[in-house]
């Protein structure tokens, strides 16, 4: 099977759709119980806007981000929307990516989320999965690993990041109202990011 950008976006949409209830349940424990619903609504809109004709990674990620901005609704809309748009800005005109380019894109996405949410690492947010994933990618680039090998390292690091979010209290977003009661629950945003990263990795590996 040949790998296409459209195929990957379809895979992402399927993951978000199949994990909708799980993400919403996680959000129900520490937030307003809408993360899965919101993300699913966003990706259902995304999938209608893409075809196999979409091969420019930069333009496509911009379109994907813009769609999330206007369909997700909660804070994850502008956060993921900005992340995809900033990542896309690093991939203009590209139809394939090296691991190094992927690392630069993830770094840009992280910067975008930090600009928006003013969060740092350790506040029980999606950054707690994204930042370790980026560190792992950087190391994989230095070690000269393949794209799939590097992404697998990033997935492992992101999953460790999710585990870490269970041990800390939230200081950003709705979950921060819970204080210490947020401890023990994994962050929904860190989880949705990791699910998307794993989906992209599996798609490329298959």
């Amino acid at each position, binding site marked *: 099977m040949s790998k296409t950008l459209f195929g990957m976006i379809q895979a992402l949409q399927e993951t978000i759709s199949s994990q909708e209830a799980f993400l919403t349940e996680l959000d129900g424990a520490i937030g307003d119980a809408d993360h899965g619903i*919101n993300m699913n*609504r966003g990706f259902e809109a995304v999938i209608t806007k893409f075809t196999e004709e979409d091969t420019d990674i930069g333009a496509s990620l911009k379109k994907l981000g*813009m769609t999330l*901005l*206007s*369909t*997700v*609704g*909660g*804070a994850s*809309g*502008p*956060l993921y*929307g*900005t992340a995809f748009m900033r990542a896309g800005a690093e991939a203009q005109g590209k139809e394939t990516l090296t691991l190094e380019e992927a690392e630069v894109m993830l770094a840009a996405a992280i910067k975008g989320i930090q*600009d*928006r*949410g003013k969060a740092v690492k350790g506040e029980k947010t999606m950054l707690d999965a994204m930042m370790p994933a980026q560190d792992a990618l950087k190391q994989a680039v230095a070690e000269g690993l393949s794209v799939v090998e590097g992404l697998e390292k990033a997935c492992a690091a992101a999953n460790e990041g999710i585990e870490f979010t269970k041990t800390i209290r939230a200081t950003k*977003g*709705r979950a921060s109202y819970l204080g210490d009661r947020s401890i023990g629950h994994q962050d929904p945003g860190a989880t949705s990011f990791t699910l998307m990263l794993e989906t992209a990795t599996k798609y490329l590996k298959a």
Partner: protein
Amino acid sequence: MVGIVIVSHSEQIAEGIKTLAGQMAGANQKIIAAGGMTDGSIGTDAIRISEAVAAADSGDGVLVLVDLGSAIISTETAFELIEPEVAARVVIADAPIVEGAISAAVQASIGATLAEVKAAAEMAKAMQKL
């Protein structure tokens, strides 16, 4: 004249505040509501907000009143989507959305500057009701 944009998670809240503030400020004052999502659900939409800001701007700047949470994040995202020249004269008021919008609209309607309109909105924070 400074334009006013109302950003709420609810379309009805944004429209209601627009009507209320418009009644005080008069028909010439530009007040644009940017509430909810295009499918009618609750939420904030950075693209809808960016269009509202562009529609509210007549060259003297735009003051944005927001409700809470993602309204602020979506508004800041919207600023990235508009012309940098327009973005340079758009600010968010740190003010209660209803009282702030009314104070801002009245100030704007008498030809106040963006800084004056913002200050008027933010004074509403200290307004005593009883």
